[in-house]
């Protein structure tokens, strides 16, 4: 909060004069509000922040952020952002993409930005549906999903962005939920601090084409049973502390905690820095398990633009600054009088 005073920005400074045009009730409003809330706290001048999006409902996001912004083409936002960050490391670059954007048409760019550890803050809005094209199933839609293009149910196995991200050796992988404002804002702050690629899957409700996709996680009656909040160095408890996750080998299991059940000491203590197998095991938990939110993994590894800068520095040190006349002449010349 110290930096806030320096820059002196407020939430209002990040709002634009554009009328926000998502459907009333869309989860994107809540995400926008959280992002606008967190931005002034980061202590970064507005002009040094860029939002880059692809195509889809979520990709309208930059129009509503009073920063630099670029609404690009379907799936390519991570690639465009890579070119920007790599040449302009002074900018903080946020990427806003949807589940179709990031995992179908842009799957390639998503994995390569993460494995290179390009310092992008990637917000992946996952509503498990194609909204802007009016209701086809998406790569994250559940098996059997009945949608416009799958009247008899989808026969595609869904893809999980968290597991994809972990497989790329991404250095920051987290999940949050559109309406969990406090949690979401914590995650945004963590991303902003992270050096390297950071991906945050935001479970988001499309109230028009896939209403209630995450209801079990947001509904007051059921969320305690279904949300597992990952906190570094803390035991994995949920259901108001009555249940927990215990490891049997690498296999997580749900156990009752307390009287007649397991002791808290048996519950897995979460470690963001652990080898990715552990995070993968949690991400892999299916029916009968709660859904983890929070930071799956946060590690330090070399950042792409720093590697690039360092290599250029070393080459320049070795060869000296480029001499154009020498370069044009090459090695073999002859003179005609």
């Amino acid at each position: 909060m110290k930096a806030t005073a320096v820059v002196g920005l407020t939430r209002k400074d990040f709002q634009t004069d554009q009328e926000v045009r998502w459907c009333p009730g869309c989860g994107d409003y809540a995400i926008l509000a959280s992002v606008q809330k967190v931005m002034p706290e980061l202590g970064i001048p507005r002009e040094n922040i860029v939002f880059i999006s692809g195509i889809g409902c979520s990709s309208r996001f930059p129009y509503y952020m009073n920063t630099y912004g670029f609404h690009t083409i379907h799936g390519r936002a991570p690639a465009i952002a890579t070119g920007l960050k790599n040449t302009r490391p002074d900018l903080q670059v946020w990427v806003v993409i949807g589940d179709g954007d990031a995992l179908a048409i842009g799957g390639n760019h998503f994995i390569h930005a993460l494995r290179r550890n390009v310092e992008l803050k990637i917000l992946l809005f996952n509503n498990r549906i194609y909204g802007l094209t009016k209701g086809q199933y998406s790569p994250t839609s559940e098996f059997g999903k009945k949608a416009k293009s799958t009247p008899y149910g989808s026969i595609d196995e869904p893809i999980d962005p968290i597991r994809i991200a972990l497989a790329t050796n991404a250095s920051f992988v987290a999940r949050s939920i559109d309406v969990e404002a406090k949690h979401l804002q914590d995650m945004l702050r963590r991303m902003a601090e992270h050096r390297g690629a950071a991906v945050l899957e935001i479970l988001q409700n499309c109230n028009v084409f896939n209403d209630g996709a995450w209801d079990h996680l947001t509904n007051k009656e059921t969320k305690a049973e279904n949300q597992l909040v990952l906190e570094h160095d803390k035991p994995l408890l949920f259901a108001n502390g009555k249940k927990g996750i215990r490891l049997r080998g690498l296999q997580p299991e749900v156990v009752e905690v307390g009287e007649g059940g397991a002791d808290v000491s048996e519950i897995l203590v979460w470690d963001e820095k652990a080898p990715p197998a552990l995070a993968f095991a949690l991400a892999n938990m299916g029916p009968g398990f709660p859904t983890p939110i929070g930071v799956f993994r946060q590690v330090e590894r070399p950042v792409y633009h720093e590697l690039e800068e360092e290599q250029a520095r070393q080459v320049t040190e070795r060869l000296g600054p480029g001499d154009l006349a020498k370069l044009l002449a090459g090695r073999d010349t002859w003179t005609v009088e």
Partner: protein
Amino acid sequence: MESQPVPQPERRIERLDAVTIRFAGDSGDGMQLTGSEFSKASAIAGNDIRTFPDFPAEIRAPAGTIAGVSGFQVQFASHPIYTPGDRPDVLVAMNPAALKANLADLKPGGLIIANTGGFSDANLKKAGYDSNPLEDGSLSGYRVIPVDITRLTENALHGSGLSAREIARSKNMFALGLMLWLYQRPLEKAVADLRSKFVGRPEIAEANEKVLRAGHAYGETAELLPNVYEVPPAKLAPGTYRNISGNQALALGIVAAAQLSGLKAFLGSYPITPASDILHELSRYKNFGVTTFQAEDEIAAISAAIGAAFGGNLGITTSSGPGIALKQEAINLAVMAELPLVVIDVQRGGPSTGLPTKTEQADLLQVLFGRNGESPVPVLAAQTPGDCFRTVLEAVRIAIRYMTPVIVLSDGYIANGQEPWRIPEPSELERIQVSFRTDPEGFQPYARDPETLARAWVRPGTPGLEHRIGGLEKHHLTGAVSYDPKNHELMVRTRAEKIERVAREYPPLEVSGSPSGKLLVVGWGSTYGAITAAVRELRRRGHDVSHLHLRYLNPLPHDLGEILSRFERVVVPELNLGQLRTILRSRYLVDAKGINKVQGRPFQVAELVERLEEHLA
């Protein structure tokens, strides 16, 4: 053939004006190196030269087969030349397949230097020969010099301790030494190059040098030929020269553009033949402020370049036809966002994977019209290897001045072919003006310069100018998303007019030959050399023929229509089925005829002369 040392015979030196040699062997035989070293020696000796490497797409096709033959043709002359020559005077054939694949091109009575050591029964069979052509009289129409290069190389390296494989790989140096002797070229340059090429492996450098000298000495001592040849220096314009290929010239042009504009250059690229060499070359120049990014695919390559351009850098992407097809949507993003970007298309035989290592000019319509919507983009075509340098500088200038993607067309022929290039002094090169808007007062993202209609380039990080751009149609001033029908039409027409205005800056077109008359030959791109040579030949024969070579393919020069109207006939030779011709016909209602070839090879001068004569009848 291995003879005792004999006293050096007196040989007559025969003077020639121009010679064309083709070196041919297995794709692993090192013919490209042999050819380029020979060309270098000729250029340094003052000849004008043009080269044409021709190799299979397979890296190591099965040894001894026709499919695996790799060739390198060079013409060198005592006068200005424009092509690597039509039919070779001399064929160096390292094996039967190389002979079979190239014999039909050799001039009648031409010289064949054949490595008899490569003509084993197995190799003869692989090339489809029933009997040995060196012995069965089938080459009686040529002068054949049989030399057992394989064995002579082994002898030269006897006791060197090198493996049989390493020794076999040195035999190209024997051929080089022999040819350098035959044309009276010094060995020093090749020796120096071998030493620097094998700097970490002195034993290999030494072996190659030994074989090179053995080849040279062999020519000197064995009585193969009654004479040697001399091609005197050509009268080129004064200056300091080097050899350059089109891909090298593009790479150097990009470095120069970065320096002249004061911008950081960012190349996003994905490996593709025949464009990859630009990426290889630029990746070495980190000390020039050039960043190269080998992306995960063609789309990411251009997307990253667009991201760099959005950040206020010089964004460039390089590819060939199939990659350009993948990039088209992203090119359109740069059209809509109005960001400067240079897209280089080194064309190859298509469609689809087509003929990756062969040349063609069939991407013109793709780059002009291959995108959705009304999507005008300036298109420039380079004419010769050295001209690629100037062309890319001009593309950068236009891209920045007009805030638009610009497409540069090269092709496999000039990408790999070399010519002598007069090295420019950096001080002769015009600076490239760049101005970033920094004043927030009255800023509107799509407000335009009244002269160029370009919008302002704003670097993110500039306070007070925060704004959003993107692929959705934008309000003509504020840049807010707009579905207003009238605004869309205004923007479509404005983008078109902006690009049309680029033509205002072109120099007047130059017609070579009479300014009006019977026949105008209109070409573009790499056919420059062949058309120039053909038109000169026709004029020598007394025909009234003029030549116009187009560098700017979009927008077309404003004086083009008037020039076309001054000629009775217009003929457009192209290495496609008539793409420029289609445009000229539709744009100017001119009854242009075509001379079209799609064989993956450049035009030969003689074939153009013959086919143009049909239009003069």
